[in-house]
């Protein structure tokens, strides 16, 4: 029996009050599709379980190193690319995607709204030099997320399950 492929589940769910429940759901979904989930949420446990002899900064570094080890161990990263507190995905998730790329991992993401960034943006935009720009002059990408994500990652429209279906499909196609 071959070993299950390991999926690192990245996203802003760690900030939500029901983060453990969401992480367990994600783990069950991964297992349903024949994968093993590596979850930074489940790996790092509750706040109450933290080592109180460490400073806050040391705790952050400790959690960071644990997450990096999970990324090292995984085969695939699946990232929640929905916007977080503004018009960008969670920066920790983006960092994990980049780190996964550097370590040769396969990259997948999921997002509710696949429209180009400039269509999704609620705010005034104008066209200048062929590009849509916001009121500060910053241009918008044409993809549904920044090209540093949509370049290397395959993105599914919907939730985690859609991304897992996409991965399973790609594996069956020999990708």
């Amino acid at each position: 029996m071959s070993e299950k492929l390991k999926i690192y589940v990245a996203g802003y769910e760690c900030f939500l009050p029901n983060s453990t429940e969401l992480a367990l759901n994600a783990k069950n979904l991964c297992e349903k599709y024949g994968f093993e989930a590596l979850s930074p949420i489940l790996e790092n446990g509750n706040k109450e379980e933290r080592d109180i002899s460490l400073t806050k900064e040391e705790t952050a570094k400790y959690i960071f190193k644990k997450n990096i080890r999970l990324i090292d161990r995984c085969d695939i990263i699946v990232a929640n690319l929905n916007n977080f507190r503004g018009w960008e995905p969670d920066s920790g998730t983006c960092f994990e995607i980049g780190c996964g790329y550097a370590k040769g991992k396969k990259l997948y993401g999921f997002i509710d709204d696949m429209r180009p960034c400039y269509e999704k943006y609620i705010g005034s935009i104008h066209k200048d030099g062929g590009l849509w720009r916001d009121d500060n002059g910053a241009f918008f990408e044409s993809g549904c997320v920044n090209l540093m994500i949509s370049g290397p990652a395959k993105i599914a429209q919907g939730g985690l399950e859609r991304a897992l279906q996409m991965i399973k499909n790609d594996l069956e196609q020999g990708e």
Partner: protein
Amino acid sequence: MFIDKNGVVRMPKAYLAGTEIFYPNTLETQEKYHKLCEKYGIIGYYPSDLPPEDEFKDYEPKDNSLHETELKFFIHDANHIRRSDIIIANLNPYRGEEPDSGTAVECGIAYGMGLRCFAFVDDARPRKERYKGVKKTRLDGTVTDKDGRSIEDFDRPLNLMFSEFTVFEGTMEDALKGVREIFNKELVAAGYEPFAVKE
């Protein structure tokens, strides 16, 4: 000058990650950053800097689709990171509370490739203090946004995934100055002459 991972003393190469390229004055910023890097004894790669000629020798775009164009730009940036020793990233909030996602991805690539990691922000106070929105507190003391999502409380200005980043408060110049001070300390400690910053 700096001492690289192999103990060789040479000019450090820095990838200058950030949102500056999105703005109409990107060419001015590119020139300004190159001059600043020269002042501090660093070779700077601005994202739109042209690559050496062999850039795409391992990559052939399949067609003119959006995806292939995106992938080409991605590889261009990733290659700049690959040939650099350090990253200096503008991690200021962008269109909201989070830094630009492209810059954040580049930070992850840089860390994963073993570069030394530096960043700058206007406000380097802890994340909880920097957060501009309405804050609430859960019963267990966790500080959250108005939607009940926790805000990091690790005495660091950014998401904990940037824990290995030395964060300078200020501009790119402040970051370059800080990096040069660190490199000079290391040079002197190893018995070499520090790099003299041209004022």
